[in-house]
């Protein structure tokens, strides 16, 4: 091969590589190695994840860390850094978007909303967002992210179900028994667990809620003496807002135990047991949970045991 030919080949290859890299960076739809629709994604600590550019035509690019991804639906959970001055003019998305402010202040419409404020925008619901000093937001997308600039909502949008920004402290604190029922076992009377229901979709049963528990094993922190393992008929997703929690997961390779610290994350497909002897918190735990359609907890005594009704949830 002549030197001219070699040089040409090199230029061609380098250009192709460069172009493919650019295309790769812009194509945030690329499949992930861990698909939450088929396997457990857990013990995720966003601190060790790489930032990626979130490129949505019509919007300023932001950085995000991907916590989980569903290859079948395009749904994903992202931790997004909104830079100072970032704005989303009124517009809507093709899929449902839920959002919680983790750091900073986001203007939802004209309402400045601080940490742990929550919003739910059904597909097609026009809304505007902005931040003056920057913010970190947790975003739960029900499908592939997109943005359509529009002053009005798309026809047929379920506008009545939208939650266009609510402050954490404006959401009533209640006991777990006040949530839509999701297990046969009663919650302890006088339970130390506190919950805030952010959203309940009456049609699908999907819920988003915050749970605060004191430290200790479940028997000390409000779950009484239930069997050690629980599994759900629907998916469960959790992001640890504050505190710590160690938890076991009953995975195909066996029991896996790990610790969640603030911003720790999991997505647990239906049917995977969790809990175990190791479940405990050294301090306290404040989780924001999402539970999918059909969420119903059953309890059993071992990792591999099939689901069976528990004997009761009250401490002796």
């Amino acid at each position: 091969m002549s030197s001219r030919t070699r040089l040409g080949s090199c230029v061609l290859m380098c250009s192709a590589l460069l172009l493919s890299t650019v295309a790769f960076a812009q194509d945030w739809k690329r499949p992930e190695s861990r698909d939450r629709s088929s396997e457990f994604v857990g013990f995720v600590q966003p601190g060790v994840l790489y930032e990626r550019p979130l490129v949505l035509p019509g919007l300023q690019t932001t950085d995000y860390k991907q916590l989980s991804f569903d290859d079948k639906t395009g749904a994903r959970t992202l931790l997004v850094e909104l830079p100072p001055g970032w704005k989303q003019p009124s517009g809507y998305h093709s899929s449902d978007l839920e959002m919680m402010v983790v750091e900073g202040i986001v203007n939802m419409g004209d309402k400045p909303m601080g940490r742990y404020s929550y919003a739910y925008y059904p597909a097609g619901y026009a809304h505007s967002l902005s931040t003056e000093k920057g913010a970190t937001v947790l975003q739960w997308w029900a499908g592939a992210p997109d943005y359509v600039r529009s002053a009005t909502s798309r026809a047929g949008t379920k506008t009545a179900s939208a939650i266009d920004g609510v402050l954490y402290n404006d959401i009533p604190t209640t006991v777990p028994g006040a949530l839509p029922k999701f297990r046969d076992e009663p919650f302890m009377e006088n339970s130390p667990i506190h919950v805030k229901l952010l959203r309940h979709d009456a049609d699908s049963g999907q819920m988003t809620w915050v749970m605060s528990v004191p430290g200790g094993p479940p028997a000390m922190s409000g779950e009484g003496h239930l069997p050690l393992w629980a599994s759900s008929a629907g998916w469960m997703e959790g992001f640890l807002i504050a505190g710590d929690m160690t938890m076991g997961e009953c995975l195909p390779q066996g029991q896996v135990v790990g610790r969640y610290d603030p911003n720790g994350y999991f997505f647990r497909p239906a049917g995977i047991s969790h809990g175990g002897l190791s479940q405990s918190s050294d301090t306290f735990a404040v989780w924001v949970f999402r539970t999918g359609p059909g969420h119903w907890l059953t309890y059993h005594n071992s990792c591999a045991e099939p689901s069976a009704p528990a004997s009761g949830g009250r401490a002796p």
Partner: protein
Amino acid sequence: MKPLHWTLAGGALLAAVLAAAAMIFSEPAQSRGPPTVDQGPPYPVPKGGYEAEGRPEFVTHYNLDSLTWEAFDAPGMPTGLQRKLLSQSTSMGAVSQITHVPAGWIQPAGYDEVDNEIFVLEGDLSIGDGADAEKLTKYSYSYMPAGVMRGPVKSRQGAVLMQWLKGEPKFVASNRDREGARTHARVRDWNNYKGPWYIDKPFPDYRIGGNFKGALHKLLREDPDTGEMTWMSFNSGIPAPPGGRLGNFGGGYEVHPSFEEYFFPEKSNDTVIGECLKQGLTPVTYGNNTYWWRPGGVGHGGPLSRGDGTAGYAISIVRTGTTLWATYVTDCTYKIGIELTADGWREYDYDLRQQPQG
């Protein structure tokens, strides 16, 4: 420099102007009437005694570092104990202290001449012998009323205790109770890790309108004769901005008829509380291992109270001289009370808190 008498005259004039302005602009006394429901505790409010004068002043130590160890010796007590003195009653000799028990320390069977309460922060302590012995470890508690005999007290690896003695300590070696000792009030072998936290019963209702949703408790002792209480509490919070709802104190200040004595064995971040002290409203910072004694009737809370902007939790050990009770006022003048009703917070004349409408 101005002559002194000019300065004095100027000061007097300024004071007169300010006083006149205060008269003109101050809100005229307005009667709000009594509360809709009696806000007083379900027992007579003590006017004197331990609950009122155990420590007459507000006492606080941000942590234990500023306190030095000293020998803790008392008549009849085996030597070797050390302590960090947290507070002391000059009239009664009662003390609150961190006590260090050295490894191998042994005290023979007997009783204390004053009530003795211990809460183990670290290490081990056994009380008595054999199968019936109390085996105290981290966050164990034991209450030994004056004159109630106990078996020998030992520590194998040493221990650090939070200890309260309700008078000048004195130990008497004995194999029987002192006559008239309140054996029915004894609490033994309590441990934090045996059960969950709770909000309500067996923790008493401590205010009109229901106990706080966010404050969790474990009741260690409610004295069957005096109502004195010792309990643990657990609180956690995340730094969410305030919403439109008023907080647990209705935006005002909480007042207890009894002293309230706190120690934080665990606190992950600092909290500031506004305290209505003699020198005026004072922000006081509380953190890990903070101790404080707040005399009865001192309001606390208000807009000065705040977190440090981080998420955190706290475990506290608390004592009161009566069954816990709380009322609420708008400010440190204690003139306007606020009561929690089904329709929200409502103002009333605080002096009439036990004379409800109708």
